[in-house]
Protein backbone atom coordinates (compact mmCIF):
# COMPACT_ATOMS: atom_id res chain seq x y z
CA UNK A 1 0.00 0.00 0.00
CA UNK A 2 2.81 2.42 0.98
CA UNK A 3 6.35 1.62 0.07
CA UNK A 4 8.98 4.26 0.73
CA UNK A 5 12.57 3.32 0.06
CA UNK A 6 15.72 5.11 1.11
CA UNK A 7 14.20 8.61 1.22
CA UNK A 8 16.48 11.52 1.85
CA UNK A 9 15.36 15.10 2.31
CA UNK A 10 17.60 17.98 3.10
CA UNK A 11 16.25 21.45 3.90
CA UNK A 12 18.24 24.58 3.36
CA UNK A 13 17.07 27.11 5.89
CA UNK A 14 18.24 30.73 5.58
CA UNK A 15 19.79 31.94 8.82
CA UNK A 16 18.77 35.09 10.65
CA UNK A 17 21.95 36.75 9.46
CA UNK A 18 21.41 37.41 5.74
CA UNK A 19 25.18 37.31 5.08
CA UNK A 20 25.77 33.98 6.80
CA UNK A 21 24.20 31.80 4.10
CA UNK A 22 21.77 28.99 4.74
CA UNK A 23 21.87 26.17 7.24
CA UNK A 24 21.35 22.62 6.02
CA UNK A 25 19.07 20.34 8.03
CA UNK A 26 18.59 16.68 7.25
CA UNK A 27 14.91 15.87 7.74
CA UNK A 28 15.06 12.32 6.38
CA UNK A 29 18.27 10.38 5.99
CA UNK A 30 17.82 7.22 3.92
CA UNK A 31 14.48 6.46 5.54
CA UNK A 32 12.60 3.35 4.45
CA UNK A 33 9.08 2.54 5.43
CA UNK A 34 6.13 0.46 4.38
CA UNK A 35 2.53 0.17 5.48
CA UNK A 36 0.21 -2.72 4.73
CA UNK A 37 -3.35 -2.30 3.51
CA UNK A 38 -5.86 -1.75 6.34
CA UNK A 39 -3.14 -1.33 8.93
CA UNK A 40 -2.30 1.49 11.28
CA UNK A 41 1.21 2.83 11.67
CA UNK A 42 2.19 5.36 14.29
CA UNK A 43 5.27 7.41 13.45
CA UNK A 44 6.84 8.56 16.68
CA UNK A 45 9.78 10.83 17.26
CA UNK A 46 11.04 13.99 18.82
CA UNK A 47 10.02 17.36 17.45
CA UNK A 48 11.88 17.77 14.18
CA UNK A 49 12.62 14.05 13.81
CA UNK A 50 11.17 13.97 10.28
CA UNK A 51 7.61 12.67 10.90
CA UNK A 52 5.75 15.57 9.28
CA UNK A 53 8.22 15.69 6.39
CA UNK A 54 7.53 12.01 5.70
CA UNK A 55 3.75 12.59 5.70
CA UNK A 56 4.16 15.53 3.34
CA UNK A 57 6.29 13.46 1.00
CA UNK A 58 3.67 10.69 1.05
CA UNK A 59 0.97 13.25 0.25
CA UNK A 60 3.14 14.71 -2.60
CA UNK A 61 3.43 18.13 -0.96
CA UNK A 62 7.20 17.79 -0.74
CA UNK A 63 9.49 16.17 -3.28
CA UNK A 64 12.30 14.07 -1.73
CA UNK A 65 15.91 14.65 -2.80
CA UNK A 66 16.38 10.93 -3.42
CA UNK A 67 14.63 7.62 -2.85
CA UNK A 68 11.45 6.00 -4.13
CA UNK A 69 7.91 6.51 -2.88
CA UNK A 70 5.13 4.25 -4.03
CA UNK A 71 1.58 4.81 -2.82
CA UNK A 72 -1.26 2.47 -3.87
CA UNK A 73 0.89 1.29 -6.75
CA UNK A 74 1.68 4.80 -8.02
CA UNK A 75 5.03 6.55 -8.01
CA UNK A 76 4.46 9.68 -5.90
CA UNK A 77 6.87 11.74 -7.99
CA UNK A 78 5.63 10.66 -11.41
CA UNK A 79 1.91 10.26 -10.72
CA UNK A 80 1.18 12.71 -7.91
CA UNK A 81 -2.44 13.27 -8.93
CA UNK A 82 -3.22 9.53 -8.68
CA UNK A 83 -1.62 9.49 -5.23
CA UNK A 84 -3.61 12.55 -4.13
CA UNK A 85 -6.88 10.89 -5.21
CA UNK A 86 -6.13 7.98 -2.91
CA UNK A 87 -4.84 9.81 0.14
CA UNK A 88 -6.39 12.11 2.71
CA UNK A 89 -4.30 14.48 4.79
CA UNK A 90 -4.87 15.96 8.24
CA UNK A 91 -2.23 18.60 8.90
CA UNK A 92 -2.96 19.08 12.58
CA UNK A 93 -3.40 22.76 11.86
CA UNK A 94 -6.85 23.74 13.02
CA UNK A 95 -6.69 26.89 10.91
CA UNK A 96 -6.68 24.96 7.65
CA UNK A 97 -10.30 25.83 6.86
CA UNK A 98 -12.10 28.82 5.43
CA UNK A 99 -13.34 30.21 8.72
CA UNK A 100 -16.00 32.43 7.21
CA UNK A 101 -17.65 29.44 5.53
CA UNK A 102 -19.75 26.86 7.36
CA UNK A 103 -18.38 23.39 8.08
CA UNK A 104 -20.69 22.04 5.37
CA UNK A 105 -19.51 24.61 2.81
CA UNK A 106 -15.90 23.69 3.63
CA UNK A 107 -16.65 20.01 3.12
CA UNK A 108 -18.47 20.74 -0.16
CA UNK A 109 -15.49 22.80 -1.36
CA UNK A 110 -12.76 20.36 -0.38
CA UNK A 111 -14.88 17.34 -1.36
CA UNK A 112 -15.32 18.84 -4.83
CA UNK A 113 -11.60 19.61 -5.16
CA UNK A 114 -10.88 16.02 -4.11
CA UNK A 115 -13.10 14.77 -6.96
CA UNK A 116 -15.93 13.44 -4.81
CA UNK A 117 -18.86 12.71 -7.14
CA UNK A 118 -21.42 15.48 -6.82
CA UNK A 119 -24.25 12.96 -6.44
CA UNK A 120 -22.60 11.45 -3.36
CA UNK A 121 -21.29 14.62 -1.73
CA UNK A 122 -24.27 15.63 0.41
CA UNK A 123 -24.97 12.08 1.59
CA UNK A 124 -21.32 11.67 2.53
CA UNK A 125 -21.29 14.97 4.41
CA UNK A 126 -24.43 13.94 6.34
CA UNK A 127 -22.85 10.59 7.20
CA UNK A 128 -19.57 12.15 8.35
CA UNK A 129 -21.42 14.85 10.31
CA UNK A 130 -23.26 12.12 12.19
CA UNK A 131 -20.15 9.99 12.63
CA UNK A 132 -18.06 12.81 14.06
CA UNK A 133 -20.89 14.24 16.16
CA UNK A 134 -20.86 17.66 14.50
CA UNK A 135 -24.67 17.88 14.47
CA UNK A 136 -26.26 21.20 13.61
CA UNK A 137 -22.89 22.98 13.97
CA UNK A 138 -22.03 21.77 10.48
CA UNK A 139 -24.12 24.67 9.17
CA UNK A 140 -22.36 27.23 11.37
CA UNK A 141 -19.24 29.20 10.31
CA UNK A 142 -16.03 27.35 11.21
CA UNK A 143 -14.86 30.41 13.17
CA UNK A 144 -17.45 29.50 15.82
CA UNK A 145 -16.05 25.97 16.28
CA UNK A 146 -14.02 24.81 19.27
CA UNK A 147 -10.59 23.21 18.74
CA UNK A 148 -12.12 19.76 19.15
CA UNK A 149 -14.77 20.43 16.53
CA UNK A 150 -12.15 21.69 14.08
CA UNK A 151 -10.07 18.53 14.62
CA UNK A 152 -13.15 16.38 13.98
CA UNK A 153 -13.98 18.44 10.91
CA UNK A 154 -10.39 17.81 9.73
CA UNK A 155 -10.97 14.07 9.99
CA UNK A 156 -14.31 14.43 8.18
CA UNK A 157 -12.60 16.39 5.40
CA UNK A 158 -9.89 13.78 5.17
CA UNK A 159 -12.54 11.09 4.58
CA UNK A 160 -14.78 13.11 2.26
CA UNK A 161 -13.38 11.56 -0.94
CA UNK A 162 -13.25 8.08 0.59
CA UNK A 163 -9.45 7.70 0.30
CA UNK A 164 -7.64 4.41 0.73
CA UNK A 165 -4.93 5.97 2.88
CA UNK A 166 -5.18 8.56 5.64
CA UNK A 167 -2.12 10.56 6.64
CA UNK A 168 -2.73 12.18 10.01
CA UNK A 169 -0.27 14.65 11.45
CA UNK A 170 -0.91 15.11 15.18
CA UNK A 171 -4.67 14.56 14.80
CA UNK A 172 -5.30 15.04 18.53
CA UNK A 173 -3.15 18.14 18.98
CA UNK A 174 -4.55 20.72 21.36
CA UNK A 175 -7.51 18.65 22.54
CA UNK A 176 -8.60 18.28 26.16
CA UNK A 177 -8.02 14.81 27.72
CA UNK A 178 -11.56 13.52 27.05
CA UNK A 179 -11.65 14.68 23.43
CA UNK A 180 -8.08 13.46 23.00
CA UNK A 181 -9.10 9.91 23.93
CA UNK A 182 -12.27 10.13 21.81
CA UNK A 183 -10.27 11.28 18.80
CA UNK A 184 -7.90 8.33 19.10
CA UNK A 185 -10.86 5.96 19.53
CA UNK A 186 -12.41 7.35 16.35
CA UNK A 187 -9.21 6.70 14.42
CA UNK A 188 -8.67 3.21 15.84
CA UNK A 189 -12.24 1.89 16.04
CA UNK A 190 -14.02 3.62 13.19
CA UNK A 191 -11.48 4.58 10.55
CA UNK A 192 -9.19 1.55 10.84
CA UNK A 193 -11.43 -1.24 12.17
CA UNK A 194 -14.79 -0.29 10.62
CA UNK A 195 -13.77 1.53 7.42
CA UNK A 196 -10.66 -0.66 6.95
CA UNK A 197 -8.56 2.28 5.85
CA UNK A 198 -4.77 2.35 5.92
CA UNK A 199 -3.73 5.00 8.43
CA UNK A 200 -0.37 6.61 9.16
CA UNK A 201 -0.39 8.82 12.25
CA UNK A 202 2.49 11.11 13.20
CA UNK A 203 2.72 11.88 16.89
CA UNK A 204 5.27 12.72 19.53
CA UNK A 205 3.09 11.13 22.21
CA UNK A 206 4.40 7.61 22.97
CA UNK A 207 1.26 6.54 24.83
CA UNK A 208 -0.94 7.66 21.94
CA UNK A 209 1.20 5.64 19.55
CA UNK A 210 0.80 2.52 21.66
CA UNK A 211 -2.90 2.97 22.42
CA UNK A 212 -3.70 3.24 18.70
CA UNK A 213 -2.79 -0.45 18.62
CA UNK A 214 -0.90 -0.59 15.34
CA UNK A 215 2.71 -0.80 14.33
CA UNK A 216 4.97 1.81 15.90
CA UNK A 217 7.85 3.26 13.91
CA UNK A 218 10.34 5.29 15.88
CA UNK A 219 12.18 8.03 13.96
CA UNK A 220 15.22 9.88 15.15
CA UNK A 221 17.25 12.35 13.08
CA UNK A 222 15.50 11.23 9.92
CA UNK A 223 16.28 7.53 10.40
CA UNK A 224 14.10 4.63 11.43
CA UNK A 225 15.45 3.25 14.69
CA UNK A 226 12.65 0.90 15.65
CA UNK A 227 9.61 -0.80 14.16
CA UNK A 228 7.33 -3.08 16.12
CA UNK A 229 4.49 -3.31 18.62
CA UNK A 230 5.78 -2.26 22.03
CA UNK A 231 3.59 -2.71 25.09
CA UNK A 232 4.91 0.16 27.16
CA UNK A 233 6.06 3.68 26.35
CA UNK A 234 9.18 3.17 28.46
CA UNK A 235 10.47 0.60 25.95
CA UNK A 236 10.42 3.21 23.21
CA UNK A 237 11.95 5.81 25.46
CA UNK A 238 14.82 3.48 26.34
CA UNK A 239 15.49 2.80 22.64
CA UNK A 240 15.56 6.48 21.91
CA UNK A 241 17.90 7.26 24.82
CA UNK A 242 20.28 4.51 23.73
CA UNK A 243 20.20 5.65 20.09
CA UNK A 244 21.01 9.26 20.73
CA UNK A 245 22.25 9.68 24.31
CA UNK A 246 23.70 13.07 23.38
CA UNK A 247 20.18 14.44 23.15
CA UNK A 248 19.42 14.42 26.84
CA UNK A 249 16.41 16.61 26.48
CA UNK A 250 13.42 14.31 26.10
CA UNK A 251 10.86 17.01 26.68
CA UNK A 252 9.55 16.42 23.17
CA UNK A 253 7.83 13.30 24.52
CA UNK A 254 4.69 13.16 26.54
CA UNK A 255 4.29 10.10 28.68
CA UNK A 256 0.89 11.05 30.04
Amino acid at each position, binding site marked *: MIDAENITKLFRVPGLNPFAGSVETTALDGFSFNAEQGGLTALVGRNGAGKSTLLRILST*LIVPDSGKVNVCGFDAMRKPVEVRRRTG*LVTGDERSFYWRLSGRDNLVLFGTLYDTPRSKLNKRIDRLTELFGLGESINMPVRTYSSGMKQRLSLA*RCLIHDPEILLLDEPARGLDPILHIKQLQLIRDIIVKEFKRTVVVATHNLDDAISLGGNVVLIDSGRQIYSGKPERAEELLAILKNTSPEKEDISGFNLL
Partner: protein
Amino acid sequence: MKTILWKIYVLIRRDFIEELSYRMKFLIEIVTVIVYSSIFYFIAKVFAGQQVPYLERYGGDYFSFVLIGIAFSGFLNVGMSTFANTIRNEQVTGTLEILLSSPTSIHLVMTARMIWNFIYGGLHLIMYFVVGVFLLSANYPAVNWAAIPLILILSLAAFNGIGMISAGFIMIFKRGDPINVFISFASAFLGGVFFPVEVMPALLQKIAAFIPITYTLRLMRDACISGASFAELSHDFIFFAILCVFIVPAGILFFSYAVNRARRDGTITHY
Protein backbone atom coordinates in the same frame (compact mmCIF):
# COMPACT_ATOMS: atom_id res chain seq x y z
CA MET B 1 -15.97 19.62 -18.52
CA LYS B 2 -18.98 19.55 -16.17
CA THR B 3 -16.69 18.67 -13.28
CA ILE B 4 -14.35 21.57 -14.07
CA LEU B 5 -17.26 24.03 -14.22
CA TRP B 6 -18.63 22.65 -10.93
CA LYS B 7 -15.22 23.10 -9.30
CA ILE B 8 -14.99 26.67 -10.58
CA TYR B 9 -18.50 27.38 -9.29
CA VAL B 10 -17.67 26.00 -5.84
CA LEU B 11 -14.46 28.07 -5.65
CA ILE B 12 -16.20 31.27 -6.75
CA ARG B 13 -18.99 30.58 -4.24
CA ARG B 14 -16.30 30.42 -1.53
CA ASP B 15 -14.94 33.82 -2.58
CA PHE B 16 -18.44 35.27 -2.72
CA ILE B 17 -19.40 34.04 0.77
CA GLU B 18 -16.10 35.26 2.21
CA GLU B 19 -16.43 38.67 0.59
CA LEU B 20 -20.05 39.01 1.68
CA SER B 21 -19.13 38.24 5.27
CA TYR B 22 -16.92 41.34 5.45
CA ARG B 23 -19.74 43.88 5.17
CA MET B 24 -17.77 46.84 6.50
CA LYS B 25 -15.06 46.33 3.84
CA PHE B 26 -17.65 46.59 1.08
CA LEU B 27 -19.10 49.75 2.61
CA ILE B 28 -15.63 51.32 2.89
CA GLU B 29 -14.96 50.49 -0.75
CA ILE B 30 -18.10 52.32 -1.86
CA VAL B 31 -17.09 55.35 0.21
CA THR B 32 -13.55 55.19 -1.27
CA VAL B 33 -14.96 55.19 -4.81
CA ILE B 34 -17.12 58.23 -4.06
CA VAL B 35 -14.35 60.19 -2.31
CA TYR B 36 -11.66 59.30 -4.86
CA SER B 37 -13.90 60.22 -7.81
CA SER B 38 -14.91 63.47 -6.12
CA ILE B 39 -11.28 64.51 -5.60
CA PHE B 40 -10.61 64.25 -9.34
CA TYR B 41 -13.94 65.88 -10.14
CA PHE B 42 -12.84 68.97 -8.24
CA ILE B 43 -9.31 68.89 -9.70
CA ALA B 44 -10.94 68.77 -13.15
CA LYS B 45 -13.05 71.80 -12.28
CA VAL B 46 -9.82 73.81 -11.86
CA PHE B 47 -9.07 73.24 -15.57
CA ALA B 48 -12.67 73.47 -16.76
CA GLY B 49 -13.12 75.65 -19.82
CA GLN B 50 -9.40 75.72 -20.68
CA GLN B 51 -8.05 74.29 -23.91
CA VAL B 52 -5.54 71.54 -23.02
CA PRO B 53 -3.95 70.25 -26.25
CA TYR B 54 -3.08 66.85 -24.76
CA LEU B 55 -6.74 66.24 -23.94
CA GLU B 56 -8.10 67.16 -27.37
CA ARG B 57 -8.00 63.52 -28.46
CA TYR B 58 -10.19 62.74 -25.44
CA GLY B 59 -12.78 65.47 -25.87
CA GLY B 60 -11.04 68.01 -23.63
CA ASP B 61 -12.79 66.97 -20.39
CA TYR B 62 -10.20 65.95 -17.76
CA PHE B 63 -12.70 64.31 -15.39
CA SER B 64 -14.09 61.97 -18.07
CA PHE B 65 -10.47 61.18 -19.00
CA VAL B 66 -9.20 60.52 -15.48
CA LEU B 67 -12.28 58.56 -14.36
CA ILE B 68 -11.37 55.83 -16.84
CA GLY B 69 -7.80 55.92 -15.49
CA ILE B 70 -8.66 55.53 -11.83
CA ALA B 71 -11.42 52.99 -12.45
CA PHE B 72 -9.15 50.75 -14.51
CA SER B 73 -6.13 51.13 -12.26
CA GLY B 74 -8.41 49.75 -9.53
CA PHE B 75 -9.32 46.88 -11.85
CA LEU B 76 -5.61 46.29 -12.47
CA ASN B 77 -4.88 46.23 -8.75
CA VAL B 78 -7.65 43.72 -8.06
CA GLY B 79 -6.39 41.45 -10.84
CA MET B 80 -2.76 41.81 -9.88
CA SER B 81 -2.73 41.77 -6.12
CA THR B 82 -5.49 39.25 -5.47
CA PHE B 83 -3.42 36.27 -6.64
CA ALA B 84 -0.50 37.17 -4.42
CA ASN B 85 -2.80 38.00 -1.51
CA THR B 86 -4.66 34.74 -2.02
CA ILE B 87 -1.47 32.69 -1.93
CA ARG B 88 -0.25 34.58 1.11
CA ASN B 89 -3.58 34.11 2.94
CA GLU B 90 -3.75 30.42 2.03
CA GLN B 91 -0.18 29.99 3.31
CA VAL B 92 -0.97 31.72 6.59
CA THR B 93 -4.29 29.94 7.17
CA GLY B 94 -2.88 26.54 6.24
CA THR B 95 -5.42 25.90 3.48
CA LEU B 96 -2.73 25.98 0.78
CA GLU B 97 -1.40 22.61 1.92
CA ILE B 98 -4.85 21.04 1.63
CA LEU B 99 -5.47 22.64 -1.78
CA LEU B 100 -2.11 21.42 -3.09
CA SER B 101 -2.62 17.91 -1.73
CA SER B 102 -5.89 17.62 -3.69
CA PRO B 103 -6.00 16.19 -7.22
CA THR B 104 -7.31 19.51 -8.54
CA SER B 105 -4.68 21.51 -10.40
CA ILE B 106 -3.60 24.70 -8.68
CA HIS B 107 -4.06 26.36 -12.06
CA LEU B 108 -7.78 25.58 -11.95
CA VAL B 109 -7.94 27.10 -8.47
CA MET B 110 -6.21 30.20 -9.85
CA THR B 111 -8.52 30.29 -12.89
CA ALA B 112 -11.51 30.39 -10.57
CA ARG B 113 -9.80 33.21 -8.71
CA MET B 114 -9.30 35.01 -12.03
CA ILE B 115 -13.01 34.77 -12.81
CA TRP B 116 -13.82 36.06 -9.34
CA ASN B 117 -11.38 38.93 -9.94
CA PHE B 118 -13.28 39.78 -13.08
CA ILE B 119 -16.63 39.79 -11.26
CA TYR B 120 -15.32 41.71 -8.26
CA GLY B 121 -13.15 44.09 -10.30
CA GLY B 122 -16.07 44.58 -12.70
CA LEU B 123 -18.26 45.60 -9.79
CA HIS B 124 -15.67 48.23 -8.84
CA LEU B 125 -15.59 49.52 -12.39
CA ILE B 126 -19.37 49.82 -12.46
CA MET B 127 -19.33 51.67 -9.14
CA TYR B 128 -16.80 54.19 -10.50
CA PHE B 129 -18.84 54.80 -13.64
CA VAL B 130 -22.17 55.00 -11.79
CA VAL B 131 -20.71 57.57 -9.39
CA GLY B 132 -18.81 59.39 -12.17
CA VAL B 133 -21.58 59.55 -14.75
CA PHE B 134 -24.71 59.89 -12.61
CA LEU B 135 -23.40 61.90 -9.66
CA LEU B 136 -20.44 63.83 -11.06
CA SER B 137 -21.50 64.26 -14.70
CA ALA B 138 -18.65 62.53 -16.50
CA ASN B 139 -19.42 62.57 -20.19
CA TYR B 140 -19.01 59.69 -22.64
CA PRO B 141 -20.89 60.87 -25.74
CA ALA B 142 -20.05 58.20 -28.33
CA VAL B 143 -19.32 54.79 -26.88
CA ASN B 144 -18.20 51.87 -29.05
CA TRP B 145 -19.94 49.25 -26.89
CA ALA B 146 -18.80 46.32 -29.02
CA ALA B 147 -15.13 47.06 -28.35
CA ILE B 148 -15.49 47.14 -24.57
CA PRO B 149 -15.79 43.36 -23.92
CA LEU B 150 -12.69 42.73 -26.02
CA ILE B 151 -10.72 45.42 -24.14
CA LEU B 152 -11.86 43.92 -20.83
CA ILE B 153 -10.89 40.36 -21.83
CA LEU B 154 -7.41 41.43 -22.97
CA SER B 155 -6.96 43.55 -19.83
CA LEU B 156 -8.09 40.72 -17.60
CA ALA B 157 -5.69 38.32 -19.31
CA ALA B 158 -2.75 40.72 -19.00
CA PHE B 159 -3.45 41.78 -15.40
CA ASN B 160 -3.97 38.22 -14.25
CA GLY B 161 -0.82 37.09 -16.06
CA ILE B 162 1.13 39.66 -14.06
CA GLY B 163 -0.82 38.59 -10.97
CA MET B 164 0.38 35.01 -11.41
CA ILE B 165 4.01 36.13 -11.69
CA SER B 166 3.43 38.14 -8.54
CA ALA B 167 1.91 35.10 -6.78
CA GLY B 168 4.93 33.06 -7.87
CA PHE B 169 7.21 35.51 -6.07
CA ILE B 170 5.10 35.19 -2.92
CA MET B 171 5.27 31.41 -3.20
CA ILE B 172 9.07 31.55 -3.26
CA PHE B 173 9.94 34.60 -1.15
CA LYS B 174 6.80 34.67 1.07
CA ARG B 175 6.92 38.46 1.37
CA GLY B 176 8.29 41.26 -0.77
CA ASP B 177 6.89 40.94 -4.25
CA PRO B 178 8.85 43.18 -6.66
CA ILE B 179 6.47 42.67 -9.59
CA ASN B 180 3.46 44.06 -7.81
CA VAL B 181 5.39 47.08 -6.58
CA PHE B 182 7.05 47.75 -9.93
CA ILE B 183 3.94 47.33 -12.07
CA SER B 184 1.75 49.37 -9.70
CA PHE B 185 4.30 52.17 -9.74
CA ALA B 186 4.93 51.95 -13.48
CA SER B 187 1.21 51.80 -14.25
CA ALA B 188 0.39 54.84 -12.17
CA PHE B 189 3.35 56.84 -13.46
CA LEU B 190 3.77 55.69 -17.05
CA GLY B 191 0.49 54.01 -17.99
CA GLY B 192 -1.58 57.15 -18.39
CA VAL B 193 -3.81 56.79 -15.33
CA PHE B 194 -3.72 60.48 -14.37
CA PHE B 195 -2.37 62.16 -17.50
CA PRO B 196 -2.04 61.25 -21.18
CA VAL B 197 1.06 59.22 -22.07
CA GLU B 198 1.76 61.78 -24.81
CA VAL B 199 2.75 64.34 -22.14
CA MET B 200 5.88 62.35 -21.30
CA PRO B 201 9.25 62.41 -23.12
CA ALA B 202 9.67 59.98 -26.02
CA LEU B 203 11.79 57.53 -24.01
CA LEU B 204 9.18 57.15 -21.29
CA GLN B 205 6.48 56.76 -23.92
CA LYS B 206 8.48 53.86 -25.37
CA ILE B 207 8.67 52.22 -21.94
CA ALA B 208 4.93 52.80 -21.46
CA ALA B 209 4.32 50.72 -24.59
CA PHE B 210 5.34 47.63 -22.61
CA ILE B 211 2.89 48.26 -19.77
CA PRO B 212 -0.52 46.62 -20.28
CA ILE B 213 -2.56 49.37 -18.65
CA THR B 214 -1.31 51.84 -21.28
CA TYR B 215 -3.30 49.90 -23.88
CA THR B 216 -6.29 49.32 -21.61
CA LEU B 217 -6.65 53.03 -20.92
CA ARG B 218 -5.97 54.29 -24.43
CA LEU B 219 -8.35 51.76 -25.99
CA MET B 220 -11.03 52.41 -23.40
CA ARG B 221 -10.75 56.18 -23.75
CA ASP B 222 -10.79 56.01 -27.54
CA ALA B 223 -13.78 53.64 -27.45
CA CYS B 224 -15.74 55.55 -24.80
CA ILE B 225 -14.89 59.18 -25.43
CA SER B 226 -14.15 59.34 -29.16
CA GLY B 227 -16.32 56.36 -30.14
CA ALA B 228 -13.44 55.02 -32.25
CA SER B 229 -14.25 52.17 -34.64
CA PHE B 230 -12.56 48.76 -34.60
CA ALA B 231 -10.42 49.84 -37.55
CA GLU B 232 -9.19 52.87 -35.60
CA LEU B 233 -8.54 50.74 -32.52
CA SER B 234 -6.90 47.86 -34.40
CA HIS B 235 -3.31 49.08 -33.96
CA ASP B 236 -3.57 49.14 -30.14
CA PHE B 237 -5.61 45.93 -30.11
CA ILE B 238 -2.87 44.09 -32.02
CA PHE B 239 -0.07 45.33 -29.78
CA PHE B 240 -2.08 44.59 -26.64
CA ALA B 241 -2.81 41.05 -27.88
CA ILE B 242 0.90 40.51 -28.62
CA LEU B 243 1.76 41.69 -25.10
CA CYS B 244 -0.79 39.23 -23.69
CA VAL B 245 0.71 36.39 -25.72
CA PHE B 246 3.91 36.92 -23.72
CA ILE B 247 2.50 37.85 -20.32
CA VAL B 248 -0.10 35.10 -19.87
CA PRO B 249 2.17 32.09 -20.59
CA ALA B 250 4.95 33.79 -18.58
CA GLY B 251 2.54 34.03 -15.63
CA ILE B 252 1.45 30.40 -15.90
CA LEU B 253 5.01 29.12 -16.36
CA PHE B 254 6.50 31.17 -13.55
CA PHE B 255 3.74 30.23 -11.14
CA SER B 256 4.16 26.51 -12.01
CA TYR B 257 7.90 26.88 -11.48
CA ALA B 258 7.31 28.56 -8.10
CA VAL B 259 4.93 25.80 -6.92
CA ASN B 260 7.36 23.08 -8.01
CA ARG B 261 10.25 24.88 -6.38
CA ALA B 262 8.30 25.23 -3.12
CA ARG B 263 7.53 21.49 -3.27
CA ARG B 264 11.23 20.74 -3.80
CA ASP B 265 12.40 23.15 -1.11
CA GLY B 266 9.67 21.96 1.26
CA THR B 267 8.58 25.55 1.89
CA ILE B 268 4.92 25.33 0.90
CA THR B 269 3.89 25.57 4.53
CA HIS B 270 6.23 28.46 5.28
CA TYR B 271 5.12 32.07 5.32
